[in-house]
Structure formats: structure tokens, C-alpha cells
């Protein structure tokens, strides 16, 4: 039988690539199913694969959850424990910008292609009357490059996933300052299963929620940078999608 395909939102931290492969091996053993892990370099290529119905399991960015759940019929299985997607707006350490209201039209923004971070970031600066039309947005390949654009003063403001910001080296962080952090709490990555995977849905959920207690489970979680999984109901996910929809 053709193996199932699992994929991971391309915004995961590079340090955890190996962890996802280890997780896949662990999961196959737990479920007794063949699963192939396919990683994509960027969101656009991953969305094309989703469009061709090639994906059965996905650790999805909240931004893509809307399309997966509402257009493709994916079902919510679990969310990472205590790991909401929060955004850090950061400026160079000596920047004259002290509060959101100091941001002016023409602000140069450095960011990655991470869709939920960009959505939340743009929403946060809208309070200072900034939008896509009166800012100059530079898209770079990683959060390290966002930081670099800031301390080399090629950008005035950077959008970071909070987790990525905090994992920057102290040397880099010392050259930056946090302007504002989001505290939204309910926007998070979710593990979703396609309608094709429905037969294994309950086993998968039970297995993830019990992961720290199962053979090697804790070690696998550590290698993915997760502390565990928590239940994510379909309604939790629908609510998150409604909320994201208000921010678009």
C-alpha cells in the first residue's frame, strides 16, 4: 500500500529537522502504518502539494489551517502543549522608536514568509496607521536574517516568531530591543489529519496525548522542541480560524 505522507509547516526551527524524522519513525511504530515525511522549503510549495491532495498529516501553520479545515476537510488532532504562536516586534537597540506610536510612514520592515507572524505583525502596527501601502517590506529567508537586517540598519522594524526571537544568540539579541510582544494565546500550530487518514484518527490522538508516557516518547518530544501535545478539538480549531479571519 502507498505510504501516508506527513509534512511540517516550513517555519519550524532548523534545529528540529532531525527531531521530525525521529518523530515520524516513532509514530510509524506506534501506529503500525507506513508514513513518509516530506519537508518543503517554503509555504508556497507546501500549499501546492496540499492542493494536489498529497498530504495526509500536517503540522500546520495556523494561517493554513483555514484552508485545510474548511476547504480540504482536515480534522484537528492535537496542538503542541503551551506553545502559542506569539509575535515579537523588534527594533535595533539604539533605535529612536520607543513605542508603537513612534513608528512612522515609510518604516522599513524585515520579515520572513511565515504567514501567521506576518498577519499578526501587520495587525499590530496598524494601530500606528501603518499598512502594506505606507511601509517598505523586505522578505528574507530566516529570522537570523531579519535580525541581521535590523542590526545592520537596513530595516527599522523586524517581525519574529517569539520562539525564534528568544533562540537568537545573546550576541545578536544584545543588538536588538523588543518593541512589543503579542499575547494572543489561542493562535497556534495544529496537527491535522486528512479525510483519507480518518481510520487512524483516534489512535493517533490517543498516542500523541500519551506520548510522554510511551516508550521513548519523551526523548522524541525533546528532539522536536516540544513539551508534549494537548487536545485540540475541531471547535477549538474552528474558533482559531474565525479569529484569524477577523485579522485578515
Amino acid at each position: 500500500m502507498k505510504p501516508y505522507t506527513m509534512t511540517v509547516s516550513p517555519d519550524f526551527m532548523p534545529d528540529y529537522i532531525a527531531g521530525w524524522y525521529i518523530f515520524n519513525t516513532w509514530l510509524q511504530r506506534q501506529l503500525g502504518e507506513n508514513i513518509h515525511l516530506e519537508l518543503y522549503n517554503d509555504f508556497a510549495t507546501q500549499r501546492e502539494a496540499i492542493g494536489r491532495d498529497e498530504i495526509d498529516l500536517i503540522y500546520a501553520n495556523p494561517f493554513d489551517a483555514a484552508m485545510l479545515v474548511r476547504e480540504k476537510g482536515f480534522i484537528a488532532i492535537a496542538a503542541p502543549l503551551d506553545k502559542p504562536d506569539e509575535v515579537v516586534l523588534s527594533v535595533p537597540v539604539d533605535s529612536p522608536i520607543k513605542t508603537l506610536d513612534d513608528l512612522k510612514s515609510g518604516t522599513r520592515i524585515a520579515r520572513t514568509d511565515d504567514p501567521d507572524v506576518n498577519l499578526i505583525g501587520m495587525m499590530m502596527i496598524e494601530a500606528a496607521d501603518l499598512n502594506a501601502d505606507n511601509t517598505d517590506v523586505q522578505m528574507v529567508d530566516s529570522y537570523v536574517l531579519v535580525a541581521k537586517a535590523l542590526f545592520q540598519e537596513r530595516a527599522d522594524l523586524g517581525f519574529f516568531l517569539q520562539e525564534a526571537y528568544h533562540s537568537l544568540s545573546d550576541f545578536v539579541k544584545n543588538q536588538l530591543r523588543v518593541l512589543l510582544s503579542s499575547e494572543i494565546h489561542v493562535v497556534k500550530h495544529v496537527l491535522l489529519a486528512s479525510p483519507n487518514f480518518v481510520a487512524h484518527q483516534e489512535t493517533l490522538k490517543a498516542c500523541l496525548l500519551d506520548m510522554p508516557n510511551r516508550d521513548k516518547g519523551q526523548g522524541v518530544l525533546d528532539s522536536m522542541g516540544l513539551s508534549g501535545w494537548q487536545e485540540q478539538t475541531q471547535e477549538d480549531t474552528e474558533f482559531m480560524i474565525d479569529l484569524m479571519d477577523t485579522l485578515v
Partner: protein
Amino acid sequence: MQVLVHHDGSRREVFVTDKEVPFPEGKLIVSRTNKHGVITHGNQSFVEMSGFTEDELIGHSHHILRHPDMPKAAFKDLWDTLARGEKWSGYVKNLRKDGAYYWVLATVVANVRQGEVVGYTSVRRKPSRQRIAECIEQYQQLCAQEVS
């Protein structure tokens, strides 16, 4: 005390002061209602900013937060827009239990489940000072027209 006239003509006396409470930076104020605008859920910021307890809010019509400076026309537009199946956005001045107020930029969407509208979600974010200044003027004019 000021008198608030609801869309159905009923009246309520409310305590109003001119103290403004700033929007909590970085947060979102979220509440949900059933199809009739009765509050079913609110996040922590929603409860804190309102000055009411969660028990006082849940089960109550969302007009519990209505400020007398808000024109009826704004909420008519909200409900008309939702009835057309569209998302509504607008600047809202809300009244707290202690009489103070806070401005928000609210966006309301329908919660559609299995093809049916089961309720609504409102997500409020920090509004721009400039847009608030424009709204104050516009809402004053609308309120004046509504009384005359």
C-alpha cells in the same frame, strides 16, 4: 447618570465618566455571542477591560457594554452586514462597569458550522488614535441626528 436608548426603544440609566482606559498593548479582546447577540464566551482581556465579572457578562445581551456616545446607526450597520453574511469592522467606544470607557477596532464574523450560523465572534484590537479622532466627530453628528 446618562440615559441609553436601545434599538427597541427601551431605556436604561448608565453611569458614565470621562476617564479613558487604554487598550492593553499586544492583546486582543475577544468575545462570542449566540445568534441573538447574547454573550456566550469572553477571553480574559474582555472580562478585565469590561470591569464586570465573567458571571455578569455571560448570558447577558452584548449591549451591556454600550456607551451612550455610540450611535444606533453603527450597530444597525453591524447587524445588517452580518445578516448579509459579511464580516463587519468598525471603531467602537465601549462603556465599563465603573463608568470609564475604552476604544477598540472591532471585527465581527459569523461562526459557520456545518453550513449554519451558530453565533458570532468579535475580535478587538488597538485602534489608531487618528481614526478614533475621526470617529468621535462622526459619531457625535450621528447621535445628534438620531435624537432630533
